[in-house]
């Protein structure tokens, strides 16, 4: 069987009228010229708007609020990267950002993603007011479900301590973890002790650490040894400071 170069269902190019060929070529040529002469599109940043009401989101989710919560955080996450333009986080309207994060948490209260974004992304901007705004948001949301959200408040405490250098704020967050998040891991529950120590409150830190060791809450031998050494050091600091006061 001979190899067919041409399909039987097609006629040769010569079957196409000259006028058709000319119209096609000219029209294509004009379009190419048009496009070549048109200016390239320019990127414009669009403002992040406020999200719709929670009830609207519930209605729009058709009974599936969790995927909608995921979509909304992905939308928010991608907002800094609009087509052709990258917007620094600090230029976003943090009122709207908070509203979107809050809406996502309302739709999916067990989701951790919005708090991770608040603590790890939006609280890292070089703008103290915006950092504080985001930390306050994390704290508010922590208070709604401390046992599930304590790790993000712990992160907020670290940001307050190291970035903002606001020790009272860091201490307040650490104390709230100890007070309200009974299922938090030991390191988070012990955080207030180390913050107190850093604040120069050696006596208070020693009392808390001693209480923690006496409560039997810490079971791991290595951790007990580490905390005991820390307690001894705190006590020695306390003694030396008292001695200097006496002199």
């Amino acid at each position, binding site marked *: 069987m001979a190899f067919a170069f041409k399909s*039987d*269902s*097609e*006629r*040769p*190019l010569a*079957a*196409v*009228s000259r*006028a*058709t*060929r000319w*119209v*096609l070529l000219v*029209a*294509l040529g*004009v*379009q*190419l010229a*048009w*496009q*070549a002469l048109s200016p*390239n*599109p320019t*990127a414009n940043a669009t403002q992040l708007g406020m999200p719709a*009401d929670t009830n*609207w989101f519930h*209605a729009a989710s058709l009974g599936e609020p969790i995927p909608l919560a995921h979509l909304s955080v992905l939308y928010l996450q991608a907002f800094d*990267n609009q*087509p*052709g*333009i*990258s917007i620094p986080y600090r230029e976003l309207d943090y009122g709207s950002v908070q509203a979107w994060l809050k809406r996502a948490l309302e739709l999916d209260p067990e989701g951790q993603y919005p708090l991770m974004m608040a603590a790890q992304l939006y609280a890292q901007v070089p703008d103290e007011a915006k950092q504080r705004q985001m930390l306050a948001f994390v704290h508010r949301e922590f208070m709604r479900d401390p046992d599930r959200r304590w790790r993000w408040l712990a992160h907020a405490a670290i940001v307050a301590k190291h970035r903002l250098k606001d020790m009272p704020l860091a201490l307040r967050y650490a104390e709230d973890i100890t007070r309200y998040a009974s299922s938090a891991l030991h390191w988070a529950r012990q955080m207030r002790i180390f913050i107190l120590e850093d604040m120069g409150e050696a006596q208070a830190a020693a009392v808390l650490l001693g209480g923690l060791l006496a409560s039997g809450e810490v079971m791991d031998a290595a951790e007990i040894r580490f905390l005991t050494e820390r307690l001894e050091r705190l006590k020695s600091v306390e003694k030396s400071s008292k001695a200097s006061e006496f002199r």
Partner: protein
Amino acid sequence: MKIRIATIARYTLIEAVRTRLPLLTLAAIAVLLGASFFVREIAITESARFQTAFYAAAMRLSAAFIAALYVIASMSREFHDGVLDVALALDLPRSHYIAGKLAGFLAIAGVLAIAVSVPLVPLAGWEAAAIWGVSLACELGIVVALSVFCAVTFNQLMPAASVVLAFYILARSITAIRLIGANPIADASSLSHRVMAGLVEALSFVIPALDTWTRSAWLLAQPASWSTLAQIAAHSVLFVAIFAAAAVFDMQRRNF
């Protein structure tokens, strides 16, 4: 020649009336208008803006969908029922057949655009609604011409409708794709990125940027100027000519 083209166009219009396309259009308008009133009721503020934007955006998509499917289904039916064979057995050039069908479909697109624009007059004012409607007619003209080309080329409903849908989505998003390609976040110098960016730029030469056509913003804020509309109309005529010529080209090469 003109009489034969006009006759085919006239019968294309009659077919549209008899296959209840007007009823389908009115049903779509009624459903989306009703839905827009629902949106208006649940909006706390700017309710009229919400209603207008919802109706305009949803109706634009629906009109493109209805026009494309109607054209492809009509052309496919003629191919498979042997109507085309009978027409070609007459003293009728293939180009006239395509021109007649296209003229009829363009008229249908125009009527469709007018019908869906009428509810916008009380919502956005006659001038904004008129500009939006003319732009929609131009957009539907491109969709209709593309549908004729795809129906002739693929001869089957499914592949033709898929190509039209893909083309329409790409045309609505080509500007955003170009912007993303031109301003990458990382590694702009990599070969893969340069190839992709070049491909996207090449695509933009043969695909109309439909995101600049029929914008809801014209109804909500400042209507487009008449000069913008003239530019859109000229560009639409160009694309209709390209797709029409391509459809005739394929038709004249086909063996029946």
